[in-house]
């Protein structure tokens, strides 16, 4: 456990959501801090189990198997993520779209669901219907992949859980998608793996907000929902937004939209920092609250 100018901080880390999730709390006695962290990990673990593309019994697998045949009852967390996904898809005019799993399967990024027929190639987020009762129906045969948004959603749940347990300070970092709440601020180094090394390193100082990053440079490709093509090229994007679910989803939209993402970001009160393949940084959306150094 780390020492800091605001002791006591308690921090733990577990392998979840395909990455490592670190949870840090301040302002609670050690036993309460550990109980709060346990509860936060349970929230993240629930999202992990419900929204896995691979696990046969997950909500996502059940939807991909049966939601085109009629409404499927899912956990309220799953309906909630799908509502966020559809809202972000609508706001980005489909640049962010969770129905791109067929492309990810075709590229070998995701494993092919066993025994499933391939989806209808005309599908989009518009074919997803989340009923008022939370049941989910697909209007065409389609596969969703929530990995572009579920991590951010899990981070939000965990941070809210920690604050609900009385933490004065909380930070949850799921492999670089993170949210900070309460007193103090966090410093986040952006590791861009620029192809033109050495490139300028960048850092974001963040209070009471979220930061997520996506890169066209990683093995894990992202899809432009409108054109169904890989996006990002050699680009790298970090998005700062109040909620991590929004920051997470917006990174993929900004990779697809580039300099045209300003209105989308402004709508969510968000800022994007994009590094080009030449190592140059640009920002879009709402200007940083404090002056740039």
């Amino acid at each position, binding site marked *: *456990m*780390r020492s*800091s*100018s605001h002791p006591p901080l308690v*921090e*733990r*880390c577990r*392998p979840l959501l395909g*990455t*490592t999730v*670190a949870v*840090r709390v301040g302002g609670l006695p050690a036993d309460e801090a*550990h109980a709060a962290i346990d509860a936060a990990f349970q929230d993240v673990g629930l999202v992990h189990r419900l929204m896995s593309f691979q696990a046969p019994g997950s909500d996502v697998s059940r939807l991909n198997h049966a939601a085109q045949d009629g409404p499927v009852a899912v956990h309220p967390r799953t309906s909630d993520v799908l509502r966020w996904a559809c809202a972000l898809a609508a706001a980005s005019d489909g640049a962010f779209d969770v129905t791109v799993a067929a492309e990810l399967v075709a590229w070998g990024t995701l494993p092919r669901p066993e025994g499933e027929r391939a989806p209808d190639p005309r599908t989009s987020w518009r074919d997803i219907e989340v009923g008022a009762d939370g049941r989910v129906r697909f209007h065409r045969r389609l596969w969703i992949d929530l990995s572009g948004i579920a991590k951010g959603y899990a981070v939000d749940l965990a941070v809210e859980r920690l604050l609900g347990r009385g933490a004065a300070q909380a*930070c949850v*970092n799921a492999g*670089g*998608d*993170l949210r900070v*709440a*309460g007193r103090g*601020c*966090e*410093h*986040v*180094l*952006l*590791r*861009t*793996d620029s192809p033109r090394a*050495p490139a*300028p*390193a*960048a*850092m*974001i*100082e*963040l*209070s*009471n*907000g979220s930061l*997520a*990053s*996506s*890169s066209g440079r*990683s093995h*894990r490709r992202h899809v432009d929902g409108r054109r169904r093509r890989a996006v990002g090229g050699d680009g*790298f994007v*970090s998005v*700062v937004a*109040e909620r991590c679910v929004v920051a997470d989803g917006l990174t993929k939209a900004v990779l697809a939209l580039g300099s045209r993402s300003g209105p989308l970001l402004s709508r969510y*009160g968000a*800022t994007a*920092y994009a590094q080009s393949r030449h190592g140059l*940084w640009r920002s879009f959306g709402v200007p*940083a*609250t*404090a*002056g*740039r*150094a």
Partner: protein
Amino acid sequence: MTMSHRFFLLPLAAVTLSVPAQAAVYLTVEQAQALMFPGATFTADVRTLTRDQVRAIEKAADVSVRNTTLKLWRASTGGWFIVDEVIGKHDFIPFALALDDEGAVKSVEILEYRENYGGQIRDAAWRRQFDGKRHGARLKLEADIQNISGATLSCRHVTDGIKRLLATYALVIAPAAR
């Protein structure tokens, strides 16, 4: 409380030096034991895997066994506590695995994590940006930059490590406990 953020760049001229690493220590072995088996006492049962056992584990788990020392404890409340490590992107990642009496995973805690910065932040001029901006305290970069954001790092190495230990349980620990 309202959101605020600032963006800082490291001047190009400074980016020529070595790469420092972030190191976070989450839990000691004793802390992990107390969290994963509340109220239990522990009996150390360290073992050395034989060559045949290593081969059998590698075959069952499809993961190579790098270390033949098995750091194992028996919990007084039932179950097993194992400390192991895997090689991450750049360094060893020690972790603790708690198994119940049947050998099922109770919980996993990563004990320490070290990560590559991918950049150089020792430059004095760049650091001076932060002087006086944080309640008058100078930012201690190695200590205060506690997060890295980038393309998500996979935790496959940890998952493989758990797979290897579950095979170790089935082939080495469980037969000896019967």
